[in-house]
């Protein structure tokens, strides 16, 4: 793969790859028509068959989540949630869901006609009964987060006006609503060790310009996902759900291409521990919200063509991020994306293999360890992750404390304000200190590493190294403080006990 450097024209890798070999039978795999429109991985389709194949595939998670033959029958839920960014994938997902949940009269007539002609048997057809009262579209607006970015709330509202208001509710959420200005910032270590105070202004954004692009990208992505779940949960709690309802369901339009990028980039940035807990899976539950990703086996190429060939066409817009139109080497995500789309062009099966493998990865920890989550991204956080990190990194000379037991990989003492005087022994059951002001006990390995990246933070003033936690992180700190207070209060001798002992 070339490096996209126009000067590298002498590089043999920069020559155009040979055209892909087409299947021998040059006809649509379904109807045998020679009028072909798309080569999807290794399969040839005409336009109508391609659209029908996708519709069947996209409907499958909905059928499985709301089976028509469930006993007892599943009541009609007040809402189904869809996370929509305005990009191609999420807009295709929304159209597909709306067409399935609220079919037009023409589509219903077509289905009846198909049934009368002896299509699928009655038992095979999904009885299209009403599943939900309405669809709630949740959109996180990145205005003011990405430099030069503009608000996308009204742009998406204009696109959603094509759907009847009786069927769709629009719920835009400003990204900044995830952060409370009244909270206390978390003090992060910088490479300029000075005295610090644990309380400072919480206006420090997790998107400080000193952070590397990789950190900015993945922090933005994971915070957006968490804000989506947080918003859905908050909205669902305000709505009355009939008895026997399944958990509130959130649909996300993550494609096969994007899943492969998330899987590889996530592993590269230290998210291996949380990989099996969700995000790259077709279905997972988080904070009581069931999340479905029906497009996990659909490539971006297929989604783009679907949006173009739909009637009416599905419109979308480009959402700039920190690395939009940046060099392919600007961040881990961009490098991974470059690799994946190159593979998808020449070796399409490899990309679907990566995304399917991500779907098979199981969470390695015990079920209760899923509850120990990062205060920033709410992914499962390994309790010993940062102990392991401190044992492999050196940032200051080792301490001469006689109480510190030597270990085979004796860690150097990092110069952090709240670091204990000796490193804990690496017991498998050991958990880190539950200090609500210690970033190591609050953040997962990936967030902690990204936010304290030494290369980027060198020379950053201490105050700038502080970061505000999102509202769910602040909630976790509050719970930790209360727990500590409870532990301390148990140890205190009360006035009555003191008098009895006297």
């Amino acid at each position, binding site marked *: 793969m070339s490096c996209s450097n126009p000067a590298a024209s002498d590089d043999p890798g920069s020559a*155009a790859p040979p055209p892909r070999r087409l299947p021998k039978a040059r006809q649509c795999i379904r109807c045998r028509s020679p009028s072909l429109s798309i080569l999807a991985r290794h399969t040839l389709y005409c336009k109508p068959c391609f659209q029908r194949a996708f519709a069947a595939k996209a409907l499958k998670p909905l059928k499985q989540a709301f089976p028509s033959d469930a006993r007892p029958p599943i009541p009609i839920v007040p809402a189904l949630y869809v996370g929509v960014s305005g990009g191609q994938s999420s807009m295709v997902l929304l159209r597909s869901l709306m067409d399935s949940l609220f079919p037009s009269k023409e589509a219903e007539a077509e289905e009846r006609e198909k049934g009368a002609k002896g299509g699928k048997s009655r038992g095979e057809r999904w009885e299209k009964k009403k599943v939900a009262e309405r669809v709630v579209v949740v959109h996180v607006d990145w205005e003011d987060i990405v430099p030069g970015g503009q608000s996308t709330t009204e742009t998406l509202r204009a696109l959603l006006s094509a759907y009847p208001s009786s069927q769709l509710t629009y719920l835009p959420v400003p990204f900044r609503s995830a952060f409370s200005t009244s909270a206390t910032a978390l003090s992060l270590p910088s490479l300029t060790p000075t005295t610090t105070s644990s309380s400072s202004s919480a206006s420090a954004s997790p998107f400080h310009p000193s952070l590397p692009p990789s950190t900015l990208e993945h922090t933005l992505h994971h915070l957006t996902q968490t804000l989506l779940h947080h918003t859905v949960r908050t909205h669902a709690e305000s709505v009355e759900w009939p008895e026997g309802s399944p958990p509130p369901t959130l649909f996300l339009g993550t494609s096969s291409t994007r899943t492969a990028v998330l899987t590889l980039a996530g592993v590269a940035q230290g998210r291996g521990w949380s990989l099996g807990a969700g995000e790259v899976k077709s279905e997972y539950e988080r904070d009581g919200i069931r999340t479905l990703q029906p497009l996990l086996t659909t490539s*971006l190429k297929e989604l783009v063509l679907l949006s173009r060939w739909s009637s009416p066409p599905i419109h979308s817009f480009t959402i700039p991020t920190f690395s939009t139109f940046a060099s392919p080497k600007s961040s881990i995500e961009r490098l991974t994306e470059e690799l994946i*789309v190159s593979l998808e062009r020449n070796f399409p099966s490899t990309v679907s293999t990566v995304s399917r493998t991500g779907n098979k990865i199981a969470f390695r920890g015990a079920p209760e360890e899923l509850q120990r989550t990062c205060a920033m991204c709410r992914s499962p956080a390994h309790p010993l992750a940062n102990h392991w990190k401190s044992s492999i990194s050196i940032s200051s000379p080792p301490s001469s404390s006689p109480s510190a037991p030597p270990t085979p990989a004796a860690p150097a003492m990092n110069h952090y304000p709240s670091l204990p005087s000796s490193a804990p022994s690496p017991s498998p059951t050991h958990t880190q200190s539950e200090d609500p002001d210690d970033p190591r006990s609050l953040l997962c390995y990936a967030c902690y590493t990204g936010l304290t990246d030494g290369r980027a933070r060198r020379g950053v003033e201490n105050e700038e190294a502080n970061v505000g936690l999102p509202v769910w992180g602040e909630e976790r700190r509050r719970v930790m403080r209360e727990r500590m207070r409870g532990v301390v209060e148990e140890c205190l001798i009360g006035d009555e006990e003191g008098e009895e002992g006297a």
Partner: protein
Amino acid sequence: MSNTAQFTIPAIAAPSSDAPISSIPLSIEFGGGLELLFSNKRTHSIMLPTASDAQPPTVKRLITYLADNVLSERRELFVEGETVRPGILVLVNDVDWELEGELEAPLKAGDEVVFISTLHGG
């Protein structure tokens, strides 16, 4: 007296091998954010010069022409060597270019070629 007018016919220079003999009109469309690289304009009507050998121009020639004459910035985000960057989908008359021979797909007058970036979506 002769009635024949005397004219001096100027010599016609022999055409060089690179000189275009004609050009064909094409409709070009950009999507998925690519329009930002082409003066923020989604649709373009161009006259693609054809080679002197009378062979129909190909998509390869079109890509080079667009990169040299229409692209307003960041060439490296559109082309990689002789072809478009990975992640850019190409349609020739609404058909996947992989079915038409990719770079060697022939073009004729009035064809519509669409370039869509599949990146930066969501």
